[in-house]
């Protein structure tokens, strides 16, 4: 059987939530039936408090499902012995790990916990696994650095090296990109992608970063109102799955740019004509201050865009007067002033 046909992680009618003191448990999502193939990377998306973390914590056995069965490589996780489970499923949490006097190598070595004896002495296999994990995470140059000397991006990679040293088939990460800047986020996701596609790991991560999840996941799990909709990112765009995600918010999903935008109330309308490239950005700026734009012929309120001597310029026709501007900022400032006066 091809490795990619194997199911790495499976949920069978699982209810998740948490027990409260005495009374009924709070259910965050129910009847979840999902499957992840080995070598796939899955992005979990949902709003704050929808139960993303609870789901991930349930999958790594940090809490129990309220109902249903979870299978890892075909085995019910509730019946896998403790150490064996630790060798099958690894976890990177959102918790900020902060230890003084620990080097990157030492921290990554902690990942060998389920393999070593009572005193934690290392075999050749253990040392090899740690070296390989550090290589894979792309941090060989940090080996001897102390944890507190690292940047947030390096720290996160170290935590990923730690889970790689644990040598598990399934890796679950709770918001791995949370504290990172944009280049670091993409770098991290590229790393996770490589691990899934080239090293055959099954990776499940949660994120609030929609653009990255759309770009870098084989499949997305959209979590909203206690249900999960799954599919390739593009499938979810076509079937309008994303609209569900932010139903009761001020956001709208823009099918063209595959991103969310604030819903706006427009008070006035302008027509825009001229240079196509400039028109896009001009429209964006006008929409921000509540003015709807239409590309087309001159009306009573009109903006003409174009270049003069190589520099962009704008002319605004309003109240039968025409004014010239050299930047969008000046144009918008002037419009705001008009708006206040009327």
């Amino acid at each position: 059987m091809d490795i990619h046909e194997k199911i790495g992680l499976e949920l069978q009618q699982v209810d998740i939530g948490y027990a409260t003191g005495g009374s009924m448990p709070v259910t965050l999502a129910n009847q979840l039936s999902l499957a992840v193939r080995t070598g796939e990377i899955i992005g979990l998306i949902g709003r704050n408090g929808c139960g993303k973390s609870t789901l991930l914590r349930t999958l790594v056995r940090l809490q129990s499902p309220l109902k249903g069965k979870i299978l890892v490589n075909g085995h019910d996780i509730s019946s896998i012995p403790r150490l064996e489970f630790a060798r099958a499923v690894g976890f990177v949490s959102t918790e900020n790990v902060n230890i003084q006097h620990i080097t990157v190598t030492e921290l990554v070595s902690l990942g060998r916990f389920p393999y070593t004896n009572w005193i934690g002495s290392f075999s050749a296999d253990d040392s090899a696994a740690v070296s390989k994990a550090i290589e894979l995470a792309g941090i060989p140059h940090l080996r001897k650095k102390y944890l507190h000397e690292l940047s947030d991006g390096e720290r996160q990679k170290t935590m990923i090296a730690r889970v790689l040293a644990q040598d598990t088939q399934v890796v679950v990460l709770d918001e791995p990109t949370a504290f990172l800047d944009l280049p670091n986020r993409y770098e991290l996701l590229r790393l996770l992608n490589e691990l899934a596609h080239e090293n055959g790991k099954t990776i499940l991560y949660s994120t609030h970063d929609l653009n990255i999840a759309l770009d870098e996941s084989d499949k997305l799990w959209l979590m909203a109102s206690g249900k999960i909709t799954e599919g390739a990112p593009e499938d979810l765009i076509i079937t309008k799955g994303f609209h569900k995600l932010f139903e009761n918010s001020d956001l709208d999903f823009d099918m063209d740019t595959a991103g969310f935008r604030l819903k706006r109330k427009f008070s006035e309308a302008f027509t825009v004509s001229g240079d196509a490239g400039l028109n896009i950005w001009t429209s964006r700026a006008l929409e921000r201050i509540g003015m709807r734009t239409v590309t087309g012929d001159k009306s009573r309120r009109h903006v003409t865009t174009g270049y003069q001597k190589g520099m962009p310029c704008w002319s605004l026709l309003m109240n039968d007067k025409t004014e010239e501007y050299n930047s969008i900022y000046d144009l918008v400032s002037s419009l705001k002033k008009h708006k206040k006066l009327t």
Partner: protein
Amino acid sequence: MNMPLKITLLLVLLWLFFVLFILDILIGPVTIPIKDILEIITTGESMNPAWKTIIVGFRLPKAITAVLAGMALSVSGLQMQTIFRNPLAGPYVLGISSGASLGVALVILGFPPLFAQGNINPLSIWVQIMAAWIGAAAVLLLIMAISFRVRDIMTILILGVLFGSATSAIVSILQYFSHQEQLKAFVVWSMGNLGNVTRGQLTVMSFTILAGLIMAVFSGKMLNVMLLGESYAKSMGLNIMLSRIIVFISTSILAGTVTAFCGPIGFIGIAVPHITRILFKSADHRLLIPAVIMTGGILLLLSDILSQLPGGERTLPVNSVTALIGIPVVIWVIFRNQKITSI
């Protein structure tokens, strides 16, 4: 720092330990030549029977008590700092010594016949030590239960201080209702004294502290993953419940035993783990535990030596000396990371 350097450092500490041990025996109101001291220790005989009595009967047990107490309190402090992930945790600061004191106070003041002057029966030793263990474990459990709900480090410390004050208040009330003789026994005990430990007590103390230290050595690997926090430790296959129980029993035995026989000795437990971490630049408990054992023994020997500096019959309360050594370390820890989040 590489491994050979760490081992060298460990050997230096071992050497320092023996030097201070001999020095501690050397110092006292009666001057005994070092040659005779070594002779008494190695052969057990001496030309001067009075010297033998002084060394074997007083100075040697006191030095051994200092070593045991220093080791026990320091390891207990290290375990607590890791398990609570709190750099300011320690048996004294968290009120665990106070809990042990309360246990001891209850039996000394509550069952006077057992502790009457000159009555040194084995039962009284065990009653006293068990009372201290139970008192220590009770406070430890209480702090642990609260630390699940309150994550803030400072809050837990303040609660520890409050527990300490509450137990002191209860002890004061007990004192109010007790006879003068018991009261005196208790006050002397509460000043922290390494010299009052009898032969029988020292035997019991040695065995129980050894047991506690062995448990600590076994917990090295567990403590290492606990540095990462509960979620990570669990996800790596650590049996959290079992590890907690081992560390709890170990730390209660260590802190409780010392408090039972020497009274509350503060700030050793909090300061020594920090001094050791700085010396060894390591967070690996398999190295830190033996290193903390050495450093703890050294620091309390040093405190005992300092307490005898006034000379003659007078000695300072060892409690005050350890506080003066330990508190600067605590202040330094607070200033080092204004935002205290890690050990």
